[in-house]
């Protein structure tokens, strides 16, 4: 309840500021104007949001799959880890915004380049969280498995992996929070649809209220993705909240 009151207070302050200073709407539109645009242009906003949401979700799924696969390979094989882990770290040292134009050049203005961009920012937190989880298995469980003559593979699949799922879930939450960054950067660099594209376009045309409306929708989209991932994570690891 309190955050809602704070938010309403801030919106009222913003409205009052615009009214008092008389700043034109193409510089700073009042919240009432943004709300009106949200309603008026809802068809357009929903269509663009659907496009961006698809990029984010496909990117997230791809990034999660890629990250999980890499983390499992690293945990299973020391030689793979030595060969590939440094490359993974280097891939993160390159700011994604710097290679965004390249991805657009290679993959085109369509959805593929945005999905690739989102997957690229997502997979690292996933690899790092899951790999950490896989390395920190309760020693007691590993000892127990050893006295039971379990193979390395059985220990990885039946003990280390399920034990690392809470870590994977927290990696996935971070991934969900950064997924919009990848998608929107991709749309800024070159696109013909999506909320990021709509923001750039409407700002260039002086339609600042529409840009704000798109921003609001983007924000809601990010929140929805985060909470959906959080919920899915809790479904995946129901024992996490029960101690241990």
């Amino acid at each position: 309840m309190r955050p809602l009151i704070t938010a309403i207070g801030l919106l009222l302050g913003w409205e009052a500021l615009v009214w008092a200073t008389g700043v034109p709407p193409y510089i700073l539109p009042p919240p009432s104007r943004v709300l009106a645009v949200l309603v008026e242009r809802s068809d357009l906003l929903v269509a663009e949001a659907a496009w961006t949401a698809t990029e984010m979700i496909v990117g997230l799924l791809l990034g999660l799959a890629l990250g999980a696969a890499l983390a499992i390979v690293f945990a299973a094989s020391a030689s793979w880890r030595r060969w590939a882990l440094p490359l993974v770290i280097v891939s993160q040292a390159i700011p994604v915004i710097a290679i965004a134009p390249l991805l657009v050049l290679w993959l085109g203005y369509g959805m593929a380049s945005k999905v690739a961009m989102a997957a690229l920012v997502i997979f690292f937190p996933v690899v790092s969280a899951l790999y950490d989880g896989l390395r920190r298995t309760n020693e007691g469980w590993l000892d127990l498995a050893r006295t039971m003559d379990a193979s390395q593979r059985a220990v990885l699949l039946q003990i280390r992996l399920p034990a690392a799922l809470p870590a994977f879930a927290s990696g996935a939450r971070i991934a969900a929070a950064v997924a919009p960054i990848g998608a929107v950067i991709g749309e800024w660099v070159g696109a013909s649809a999506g909320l990021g594209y709509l923001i750039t376009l409407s700002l260039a045309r002086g339609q600042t209220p529409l840009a704000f409306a798109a921003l609001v929708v983007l924000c809601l989209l990010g929140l929805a993705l985060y909470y959906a991932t959080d919920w899915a994570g809790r479904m995946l690891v129901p024992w996490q909240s029960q101690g241990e």
Partner: protein
Amino acid sequence: MTDLSAAPPLLVHRARLAFGDRLVADDLTLEFPAGRTTCLLGRSGVGKTSLLRWLAGLLPEAPRSQPVAYMAQSDLLLPWLSVIDNVLLGYRLRGDRAALAAAEGQARALLAEVGLGDRLDDSPAQLSGGMRQRAALARTLCEDRPVVLMDEPFAHLDAVTRLELQDLAARLLAGRTAVLVTHDPLEALRVGHHIRVLSGSPFTAGPPIEPTGAVPRDPADPALLGLHARLLAELRGLAP
């Protein structure tokens, strides 16, 4: 079930146990008699757990001489498996489907014996501490190995639960070669056919103490209480 009359003795011959720089035991020779429960009693830090881990093949450069079932201080139940799947963990890990199917009946029977017959599909988080340790006991016995190693398995439990679990363990361990590490003289006296007191650094094992009477022994038995007092005095006299 394994033919328990075939339970082998467990022999330690001139073993050297080291933990990094620290020499835990040197030139250690011990025999754990076949089909009997031997309790290793000693103060904290003397090296009881190291010896047990050595016997289990869990220390580096310590090949295990034969298959064992191992029970640690904490129950080590996997939170994502049901109680019965935890009891069958060894079979699941070894991936032998036929053996897994064959062991299921035994797992049910063992869980019924430890009083968890109606909690088969519960998750470990739904069980109390005593129930969890009983499930761990069922898992240890379901492994059906002739040698059972237990490291202070009841240390975390309240006094009454501990007594109940000692009774249960003494009954279910009958016929197996078992080694139970404990710092509680009363526990050793209740469930051990033989008791060895470990002391010194590097440690040595005292002569076997063999209390009379069948296990689990009655904690109110005056002879047992006399021995208890004697063992406590002995442990007190030892450097920690």
